[in-house]
């Protein structure tokens, strides 16, 4: 219906190799982009600033992480620390009076370099041991931020973001900030989509699937693992800076704690490892499900449908949220992206049930 393949005949390699070879997919992307671009026109500012904006930034962060965890297969449980490095670097550069564009690039580079130092551990260790190495990064970065007042911003440990302009546009007001976040999300999305189909991306997948098999076909796994850490940390660092400037407008150490790292991993896993759409779905789920559940429960309580203590009332959404995650993963272990993919494939072969060999 939506995904009819009929009439789609690629007669040139260029058309067959484009990002979305099926017109229906292409249209869908354009429509979503149009919806996203027009959001400030039809969306109330509550939904724009409290839902859409953080969702876009967190999606960009989850995309950065999924490039590392999903595509290159390197586990990272300290990605919030990478974002923290980006956020703090950008804010200090901007406060020193440099342009915002430089602050963003500086954020990415600093995060990438420090991320690589810890990523170097990945060259020696795999799996759970890599989890330990990246956790160490999380705690080390947290400790440095908290204990060096020059970084955290003195006794209050809060740094307000200064007013900045991006490409001559002042980053003030909900709409400008929203478009800033959207632009970054689009850039990361296009980048990750394309990385996945270049030789770089294929090399990362080869290293993920079997690093020694990759090395015997001439893929330098040392180089590509390091490159994966570099790229992913760069994107993560800029995402942290965008989060600080476009959303929080103030940076405190708690915004990038260990629990945030776990949330990021959850976004990637619930969404579907290595999937671009999965990063969006996972970020949306992890970010918004608790909010929706809290509001729904509060509404039920106000209406008198639910008479429990405020303590229990606050915990019911947490239980529901946990149950939802387990439920989704039981239903489809490969994440939300796979559920979407199943639906898409169903329509691709519709009206038939299967594609035969």
């Amino acid at each position: 219906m939506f995904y009819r393949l009929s009439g789609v005949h690629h007669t040139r390699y260029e058309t067959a190799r484009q990002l979305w070879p099926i017109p229906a997919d292409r249209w869908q992307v354009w429509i979503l982009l149009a919806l996203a671009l027009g959001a400030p026109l039809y969306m109330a500012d509550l939904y724009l600033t409290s839902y859409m904006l953080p969702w876009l930034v967190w999606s960009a962060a989850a995309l950065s992480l999924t490039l590392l965890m999903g595509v290159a297969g390197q586990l990272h449980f300290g990605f919030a620390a990478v974002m923290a490095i980006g956020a703090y670097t950008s804010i200090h550069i901007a406060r020193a009076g440099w342009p915002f564009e430089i602050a963003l690039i500086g954020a990415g580079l600093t995060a990438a370099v420090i991320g690589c130092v810890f990523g170097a551990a990945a060259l020696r260790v795999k799996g759970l041991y890599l989890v330990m190495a990246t956790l160490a990064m999380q705690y080390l970065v947290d400790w440095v931020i908290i204990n060096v007042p020059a970084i955290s911003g003195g006794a209050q440990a809060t740094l307000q973001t200064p007013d900045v302009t991006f490409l001559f546009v002042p980053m003030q007001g909900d709409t400008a900030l929203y478009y800033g976040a959207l632009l970054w999300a689009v850039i990361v999305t296009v980048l990750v989509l394309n990385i996945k189909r270049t030789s770089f991306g294929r090399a990362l997948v080869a290293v993920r699937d079997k690093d020694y098999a990759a090395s015997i076909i001439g893929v330098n796994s040392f180089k590509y693992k390091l490159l994966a850490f570099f790229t992913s940390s760069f994107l993560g660092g800029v995402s942290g800076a965008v989060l600080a400037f476009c959303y929080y407008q103030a940076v405190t150490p708690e915004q990038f704690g260990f629990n945030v790292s776990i949330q990021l991993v959850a976004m990637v896993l619930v969404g579907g490892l290595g999937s671009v759409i999965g990063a969006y779905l996972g970020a949306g789920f992890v970010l918004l499900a608790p909010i929706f559940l809290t509001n729904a429960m509060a509404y039920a309580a106000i209406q008198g449908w639910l008479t429990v203590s405020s303590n229990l009332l606050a915990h019911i959404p947490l239980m529901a949220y946990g149950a939802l995650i387990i439920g989704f993963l039981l239903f489809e272990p490969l994440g939300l992206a796979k559920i979407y993919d199943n639906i898409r494939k169903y329509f691709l072969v519709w009206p038939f049930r299967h594609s035969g060999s």
Partner: protein
Amino acid sequence: MRGLFKGLIGTVAAAALTVTGTAKTDDDTIKFALLQDFTAVYTFVTDEYNQGQRDYLTLINEEGGIDGYTFQALVRDTGNEPQRGLEAYNRARREGAVLVDFLSTPVSRAAVSRVLRDEIVMITVLHGRGDASDGTTFPYVFPMMATYWSQAAVLADHIEQNEDGLEGKRIAHVYIDSPFGREPVPVMQELAERKGFEYRTFAYPSPGTEQSATWSDVRRYRPDYVMIWGAGGGQPVSVREAIRNGIAPERILSVVWMAETDARTVGTDVATGLKRFEAVATGTDYPIMERIMETVIEPGLGTGDSENVGTTYYNIGVASMAVSVEAARLALEEYGGPLTGEKLRDGFRMIEDYDAEGMMPPLTFSEEDHQGGGFGRISQWNGEAWEPVTDWYASYQDIVWEEIEKDAAGFREGR
């Protein structure tokens, strides 16, 4: 592929919009948003504190409100997460809240620039930034009670009174390794220099369930007094470790976060003699508390377990709302309704020597001072309850204000 989900979000958002409704039209209710952390870090205080706040608002409503206005509490859990706090804040703002209380330092910090922009009053009772006491820099933020700087000064002053001077004394400051734990350090250092006592800091790692290594260092230092600066589960651990390392309970002085439950966790007899800073009186022997018992609790209108009524944190909640309602009353008297954030702010600034009918030290706010004077007193655990051992007083406000000015200046420059 950007996903089908975006469309879905739109639909769900629209649904949520209709569900939560836009009930801000009823002009005779004043909405206070109590968007607090019921599930993560502040759980040790939130339940009782929030219960006290809501019970006090119920009391005011039962007594007919003020000036024909009644109060409504918008309560949400934020899980101590800035992004959930900001969502709840934006939602509450839509619903017409004029005052917000997050009871969470991370969320309050993230919200500072927004409340200043949106002109909504944020009370940061015993949390948040201490430099927000500077009303000129933070016109819409009210720390309302003694900041941690003031608390440290009050505690140091108490030692001075007890010992006839601080000269040559050794004070150990044992704190949770976080910005909150370190906050009083500059004030104490300044005092040490001025008064000629020895001061050393000892940090224990968060969350504070394991502190034995720190305390063996403290023992070697042989302090005359120990100040403990933590919150929640770490506090009874600190007290127990201090006593185990040979420090008499009378020589342990705690930050405001020390309640009945902590003393019971340590052991009611073991903890006897322990001292703490107190910002609001504990117990039910005060006119407001008696009225709450009579009008709210006994008819069954209370929001939680009636056992909690009169506990430390419950009373702090009551006091926070008593001050806020007083501010609303003054604002309505001066400007008339409907109440806005700006009017409420001015109401706060009009408060003079308000002591919540004896429950609190007399608070006075002004355009400059949003702390209210930095008063407190020392109370001591007598085996059954916290018993005040001093009168309300404030100390070394010059040093405290130096810190406030310094940090507030930093905030202004950063903007």
